[in-house]
C-alpha cells in the first residue's frame, strides 16, 4: 500500500497525544489493509481503484501558515484582545490581516490555485452560491481556506488543529472511531490535520446552518486528502450542519477524498446533518460519519450522493441514552460506471430509542448502487423502534443494485422493520405523459423527480430542502 501511506510533515507532531493517535491509526490501517472482496463490510463495493500508486498527499496550508505566523511575528501577531492563538486561533470575528493574500502570503491560502490567485475575489465567488443564509467554511482540494464567518455567541468554529492547540479537541477527537473495523477511518486518523471543529454551546440554538464546502478545483488531479471534522452539540443545543463536496475544476480529475466526521449530540440536543456529494466523476469519496446521541438527543441526517466514481457514505449512530433518536435518510442518483454505496449502522443501546431510515436511489448506465443497512438493538434496549426502507429505480438493463439489510435484535418488546424494493420507470406513466405532448426525456425526468420526492421531503428546513430538490435534477 505505498500509495496511501506516505511520509508527510504534519502539524503538531510534537503533541504527544495527537501523534499517538496518528500512530494508532497507522498501525490499525496496516493491520487491516485495504478492504478486499472478503471484507464483509465492503463486499459489494470494491475500493481497488483507491489503492493506486500515483496518489499525492500534499502538505497542508495550515502548517505553512502557522510557521509563517510564528517566524515572522515571533508568535501571535493578532492585535485584538480576544486572540488566544498558538499561532492562529480564529475566534469569531477574527479578521486579522494575515489572510489577505498579499505577496508575503504567497505560500499561504492561495497555494494551489495559481491562475486566479486573489483570495478576496475567490472568497466572493465562494460566498454567492447557496440559496440560503449560512456560516460558510471553505476548503479547496481538502485544504482549509482561512476565511472565517462572523459567529454569534455560543458557537465556535475553528480548524481542527486550532482546536488541538487550545486543547478543545482532546476530549472528543478519536473517541467515536473504532480504528480496528474502519480501515479508511484509521488511515484518516493517521493523517489527522485538516478539518474543522464546531462546538455549539449548551442550550444555544444556532440560527443559520454551518456549511462546510470542499471545492475540488484545478490541481485536484491525483490528490489524496483526508478531512476530519468534529461536531459537538452540547446539551439542549440545536444546529444544522451541511457538507457540500463540489467540483469546479476538470470534471475528469481523479482524486480521493477520505472524510471522517465525529459527531457528539448531547443530552436533549439536536443536530440536523445534510450532505451533498457532487465530486468529479472519476473521483473517490469515502466518508464515515460516527455519531453518538445522548438521552433525548436527536440526529437527523440526509445525504445525497451524486458524483464520484466510487462513493461511500457510511453512517454509524449510537443511541446511547434513553429516548435518543435518529433519522438517517439518503438518496443517490448515478449514471456511467459509478458505484455509490450508502451504509448505515444504527445501534440502539438504551431503552425507548428510535430510528428511521429511508434511502432511495436512481441508477442509470452501468452504475451500481449499494445499500447496507444494519439495525442493532442491544439487550435491555426495550421499547425501541427501528425502521428502514430502501428503494431503487433502475433506469437501464445494466444498472445494478446490491442490498444487504441486517437486523440484530437482542431485546424484547421492540418494533423493528425493514424493506427493500427496486423497479423500473413505469411504461404506462411514460406513455400517458407522452400522449399529452410531454417529451420522453422530460417525462422520465418528471417521474424520477417524483420518485425522489418523498425522501427529499424528509429534509426539514424548507430552504435546504429546496436546494437539494434542485440538486437531484
Amino acid at each position: 500500500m505505498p500509495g496511501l501511506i506516505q511520509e508527510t510533515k504534519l502539524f503538531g507532531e510534537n503533541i504527544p497525544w495527537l501523534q499517538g493517535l496518528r500512530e494508532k491509526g497507522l498501525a490499525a490501517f496496516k493491520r487491516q489493509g485495504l478492504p478486499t472482496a472478503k471484507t464483509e463490510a465492503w463486499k459489494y463495493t470494491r475500493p481497488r481503484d483507491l489503492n493506486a500508486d500515483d496518489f499525492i498527499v500534499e502538505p497542508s496550508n495550515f502548517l505553512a501558515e502557522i510557521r509563517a505566523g510564528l517566524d515572522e511575528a515571533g508568535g501571535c501577531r493578532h492585535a485584538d484582545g480576544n486572540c488566544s492563538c498558538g499561532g492562529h486561533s480564529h475566534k469569531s470575528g477574527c479578521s486579522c490581516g494575515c489572510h489577505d493574500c498579499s505577496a508575503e502570503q504567497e505560500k499561504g491560502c492561495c497555494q494551489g490555485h495559481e491562475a486566479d490567485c486573489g483570495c478576496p475575489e475567490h472568497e466572493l465567488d465562494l460566498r454567492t452560491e447557496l440559496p440560503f443564509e449560512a456560516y460558510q467554511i471553505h476548503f479547496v482540494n481538502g485544504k482549509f481556506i482561512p476565511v472565517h464567518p462572523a459567529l454569534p455567541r455560543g458557537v465556535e468554529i475553528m480548524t481542527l488543529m486550532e482546536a488541538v492547540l487550545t486543547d478543545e479537541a482532546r476530549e472528543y477527537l478519536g473517541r467515536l472511531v473504532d480504528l480496528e473495523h474502519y480501515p479508511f477511518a484509521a488511515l484518516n486518523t493517521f493523517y489527522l490535520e485538516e478539518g474543522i471543529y464546531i462546538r455549539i454551546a449548551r442550550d444555544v440554538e444556532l440560527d443559520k446552518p454551518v456549511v462546510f464546502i470542499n471545492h475540488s478545483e484545478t490541481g485536484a488531479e491525483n490528490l489524496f486528502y483526508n478531512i476530519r471534522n468534529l461536531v459537538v452539540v452540547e446539551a439542549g443545543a440545536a444546529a444544522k450542519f451541511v457538507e457540500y463536496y463540489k467540483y469546479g475544476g476538470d470534471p475528469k480529475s481523479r482524486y480521493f477524498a477520505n472524510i471522517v466526521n465525529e459527531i457528539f449530540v448531547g443530552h436533549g440536543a439536536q443536530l440536523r446533518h445534510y450532505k451533498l456529494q457532487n465530486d468529479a466523476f472519476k473521483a473517490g469519496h469515502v466518508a464515515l460519519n460516527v455519531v453518538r446521541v445522548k438521552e433525548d438527543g436527536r440526529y437527523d441526517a440526509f445525504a445525497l450522493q451524486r458524483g464520484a466514481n466510487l462513493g461511500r457514505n457510511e453512517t454509524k449512530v449510537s443511541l446511547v441514552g434513553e429516548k435518543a433518536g435518529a433519522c438517517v435518510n439518503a438518496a443517490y442518483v448515478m449514471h456511467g460506471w459509478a458505484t455509490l454505496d450508502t451504509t448505515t449502522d444504527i445501534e440502539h443501546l438504551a431503552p425507548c430509542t428510535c430510528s428511521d431510515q429511508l434511502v432511495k436511489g436512481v441508477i442509470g448506465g452501468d452504475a451500481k448502487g449499494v445499500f447496507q443497512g444494519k439495525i442493532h438493538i442491544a439487550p435491555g434496549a426495550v421499547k425501541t423502534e427501528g425502521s428502514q426502507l430502501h428503494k431503487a429505480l433502475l433506469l437501464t438493463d445494466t444498472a445494478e443494485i446490491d442490498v444487504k439489510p441486517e437486523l440484530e435484535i437482542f431485546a424484547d418488546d421492540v418494533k423493528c422493520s425493514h424493506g427493500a424494493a427496486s423497479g423500473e420507470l413505469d411504461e404506462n406513466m411514460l406513455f400517458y405523459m407522452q400522449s399529452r405532448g410531454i417529451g420522453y426525456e422530460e417525462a422520465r425526468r418528471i417521474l424520477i423527480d417524483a420518485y425522489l420526492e418523498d425522501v427529499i421531503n424528509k429534509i426539514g428546513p424548507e430552504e435546504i430542502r429546496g436546494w437539494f430538490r434542485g440538486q437531484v435534477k
Partner: protein
Amino acid sequence: MSKTPLLEIEDLYARVCDKEIIKGFNLTINEGEVHAVMGPNGAGKSTLSYVLTGKPGYEVTSGKIRFRGKDLLSMAPEERAREGIFLCMQYPVEIPGVPTMTFLKHAVNAVRKHAGEPELDTPSFIKMVREEGKALGIDNEMIRRPVNVGFSGGEKKRLETLQMSILKPAFSILDEADSGLDIDALKVVADGVNALRDGRRSMLVITHYQRLLNYIVPDFVHVFADGHIVRSGDKNLALELEEKGYAEFVKEK
C-alpha cells in the same frame, strides 16, 4: 365545399403480443367530423386508439395512417400529441408524486412550444386551468393532488376532459368516455366535449354502448368487429345496433 381529410387510415393491420387485433381497417375522418366506432368488448377498440397514439407494444404490421397528410406512424407519441392528437383514455393512468397542476403545465407548454407559441407563465396558466375546470366541476384541491391518484372513476374522466379542453387538440379520440359515469357526470363530460366542436375539430368516439351518443351526437357511426369496420352509417345505425345487438353485424361479413 370540399372536405379536407384530417385522418386517413388505410388497410391497417396491427398486433399486440403477437396477436393480430386490427385487420384491414380503413377509415377517413375529415375536418369537423365526429365519427363513432362501436363494437363488442374485446373487438380491439382500445387497441385502435393506442395504435393511433403510438403506444409501445402496439405494432403496426402493414397499412398507412396519415394525419394532415403526414405519416403518423413515423412519429413518436409526443409528436403526435403536439400535432394535435389527443386520447381520452378508457383507464387513465395514476402518477404518484406528480401534482396534476405540474403535469398539466408540462403538457400545455410542450404543445405550445411545438406550435411556436410562448410558454404560459404560472399565473395565466393557473387562471386558464381554473376557468376550464370550473365548467367540469374540477376544483383547486383536485389539481393539487397527484395525477389521477385516488381519483374516483368520474374524477378521472373529468380530468381527461379538462386536459382536452386546455390542449384543444384538432383530433380527439374518446375511448369509452362514459364508462363508470352516472348520468350527471356523463352530461358534464359531454358538455365539455361538445364545447370543442367548432366545425373544424374532429373526433373519434369509441363506445360499447349507444347511450353516450345521445349526448355526443356523431356524424357517422361505424361497427367494428373482427379487426375492421363491418358496417358504416349515420347516427341511426347506433340505435339499430342497440336494438339488434352486435351478433347480427358480426355475422354479416
